[in-house]
C-alpha cells in the first residue's frame, strides 16, 4: 500500500533529499503497523516519540495503517 509520510527535526535526514520541509512524501509500504513503518524508514521507536496519523496524535504504534494514511513523526522535541 501507499502511505504519505512527513518527518521533522532530526528525523528529516531519513526523508528523500528533494523532500521540502513540511511536505509529505510517498512511501510504498510493505508492513502493517506504525512500528513496521518506523522500521522500514530506518529509525527506532524511541526516536519516533510523537506520531500523528491523519491529524490525530497516537501513542499506539501497533495500530494498523491503511492505504492513503498520512503519518507525521517527530523525535523528542520541546522548548517554549
Amino acid at each position, binding site marked *: 500500500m501507499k502511505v504519505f509520510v*512527513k518527518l*521533522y*527535526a*532530526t528525523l*528529516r*535526514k531519513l526523508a528523500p533529499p528533494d523532500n*521540502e*520541509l*513540511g511536505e509529505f512524501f510517498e512511501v510504498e509500504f510493505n508492513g502493517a503497523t506504525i512500528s513496521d513503518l518506523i522500521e522500514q524508514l530506518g529509525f527506532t521507536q*524511541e*526516536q519516533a*516519540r*510523537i506520531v*500523528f496519523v491523519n*491529524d490525530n*496524535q497516537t*501513542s499506539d504504534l501497533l495500530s494498523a495503517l491503511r492505504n492513503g494514511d498520512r503519518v*507525521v513523526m*517527530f*523525535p*523528542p*522535541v*520541546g*522548548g*517554549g
Partner: protein
Amino acid sequence: MSKILRINMSDLGHKWETLPKKYETLAGRAFTSAVIHNEVDPTCHPLREKNKFIISPGLLAGTMAPSSGRLSVGGKSPLTGGIKEANAGGLTATRLGYLGLQGVIIEGAPPVETKDWYSIYIGKDKCEVKKTSDYAGIGLYELIGKIWKDYPSKPGIIGCGIAGQRLHKGAGVFGNNVENTDPGRYAGRGGLGAVLGSKRIIAIISDASDGSRPEAKDKDRFEKGRKAFKKALDNHALTGRLNNEKGEPYGALKNYGTNVLQNILNEAGALPTRGFRTGRFEDAAKISGEAVHDLIDKTRKRFGDKAEGKYGHACHPGCVIACSNVVPYEKTGKAQVSPLEYETAWAFGTNLGIGVLHDVAEMNRICNDLGLDTIEAGNAIAMFMESGLIDFGDGPAAIELLMKGYHPESAKGALVCSGALTAGETLGVSRIPVVKGQALPAYDPRPIRGIGVTYATTTMGADHTAGYTIAAEIVGIKGTVTDPKAIDKAELSRTFQATTAYIDSTGYCLFIAFCVLDDDSGFGGMLDTVNGFLGKDIDVGEYGMAILKNERAFNKGAGFTAKDDRLPEFFYTEPFPPHNVVFEVSDEELDAVYKDM
C-alpha cells in the same frame, strides 16, 4: 551567597544587608516573590515609589552546575496588576553569583519632576548609583556597546529600553548576551521594564572582576550530582549534544532551538494562527526551527568564516543545552537577531499570518532594540489586524507599525508598546487573548486544555512557562505521551506550576525538565546539586508550593478573585479548527487548582 544589596532611588543611597535566616534557601523566583510578598503593598501603583524591583540570581548561578545561570527579576506588574517574576539567561545571574549576592532590592523613586536617568554599578562590595542621562533614548544595541566601552571588564547588563523609559506596559527587562552583540536576553513579560523606567533606571551593571565562584556546602555531593546531571542532559535526545557518533544532528534544542515546536504544534492543530482563529498555519515550516537551521547552514556554506549565523548557542555561561541561535541575513550572512525563539516566531509569524522568516526576525530585532516583550508586542499588532487597520499577513505593514514605537509623538507606537489588552480595547476588538491583562503565548488552550488551565490560574497572567503541561500533553514523559483526555488537568497544572516555581529558583533553565522527567539519573543529579549546594535537603513540591502561596496571597491582596482565573470568553464559544473544540474545563476544575490557597 549571603548578602542583600538594597538601593533606595528616592535618596540614591544603598546599604548591604546580611541575609535574614528566613531567606537562607531562597533564591531566584523564591526570593523575588518572598520579598514582594513581605515588603510591597499589593494595592500600590506599580509605576510609583511604593513598588520595588527585585533581582535575584538562581541558587546555583555562578557554580559549575550545567545550565544553572538563570536570573529572576520581580515586582508588582504594571501589565497584570499582580505579582510578577520574569526569568532570563545572559551574564547578570552568574556575575551576581560571583559577587555573593542573593538579591538586589531597588525601592523608592526619584521625584516625578526629575529629568535625570541613572544606572547602577555593582562590583565586589561596591555599589554606585550614577547619573547616566546619555544612556536614555537610544536603541539597546547601541547602549550595550557603549556600556562595554565604558566598562571593559565585560559586565552583565540588564535594564530597560525606550519602551520602559516611557512607562509602556509591554516593556521587558533586557539583558546583554554572552558576547554583548545583542540585548536579546529578555526577562520579557509583565511590563517590568516600565517598573525600572519609573525608577529612572536605564541599566544595572554587574561586574564580577574581583568575585569568586560560589562554593557548595557539601562539595562531594554537589560534584557527584553535577557530573550525573551533565551526562543525562548530554545524552537526552532533546537537551543533548549537537551530533551523534555519525555526525548527524542529535539534540533537538541545540540544532533547532525552541522553535522546533512550530511544526509540531502545527501538526497537532494547536498552533494559534491569525489571532487564535485556526490551529494550522500553511507557512509554519518556513519560520520554524528547522528553517532557521537550514538558513544558517546555507549562509555558512556561502560566506564561510564571515557567516555569523549560529545554532547551539548558549544563552548564559555554562549552558550545555544551548538552545539559543543567531539568525543571519540570507543576503549577507551577518547577524540579524539573537535569539529567535519559538514564542517570538509565533507572535510575529503565525499569529499575524506572516510566513516570511526575514520579517519575523526583523520584528524580533526591533523589539530587542526598543526594549519590548515580543509576545506582548506580537499580540498587540494582532489587535491592529483584528480591527482591520492592517491586514493579516502584511509583514512590511507590521514592521512599519512596530517602528512607530520609536517615535514619542506616535499614538499607534504607544499602543503597540502597551500590550494586547490596551491596544485591543482602544481599537474596539472583542477577541483579546489575555488573562489578567497578559497576552497568551503560542499554544491554543482549546485543543490543549492543561496549558489552558495554567494560563487561567497561574499568578503570572497567561504564561506557558508557569506550568508547562505541554510536556505531558504533547511531548510526552518517559517515552510515552499520555492520552490528553485521561489527564486530570487541574492536578497536572498544579504539579507543573509548583515544580516550575522550584526550578525557577534554582537557577536551572526550565528546559532541564524534559530530561529530568525522562531520566531518573538526571533527576537525582539535579537534586544532589541543589541539596549539596545548600548542605541540606529541601522538598521540591513543598518548596514550589510555598512560592505559589506567597504569590497567591499577594494577588489576593491586590484584589484578584476567582473570576480572574478564567480565559477570555471567545475560547469558550468559538470552535477552533481543525479539531473544532472549545475550552471545556469547568470553573470548578479551574478553582480546584488553588482550592486551598
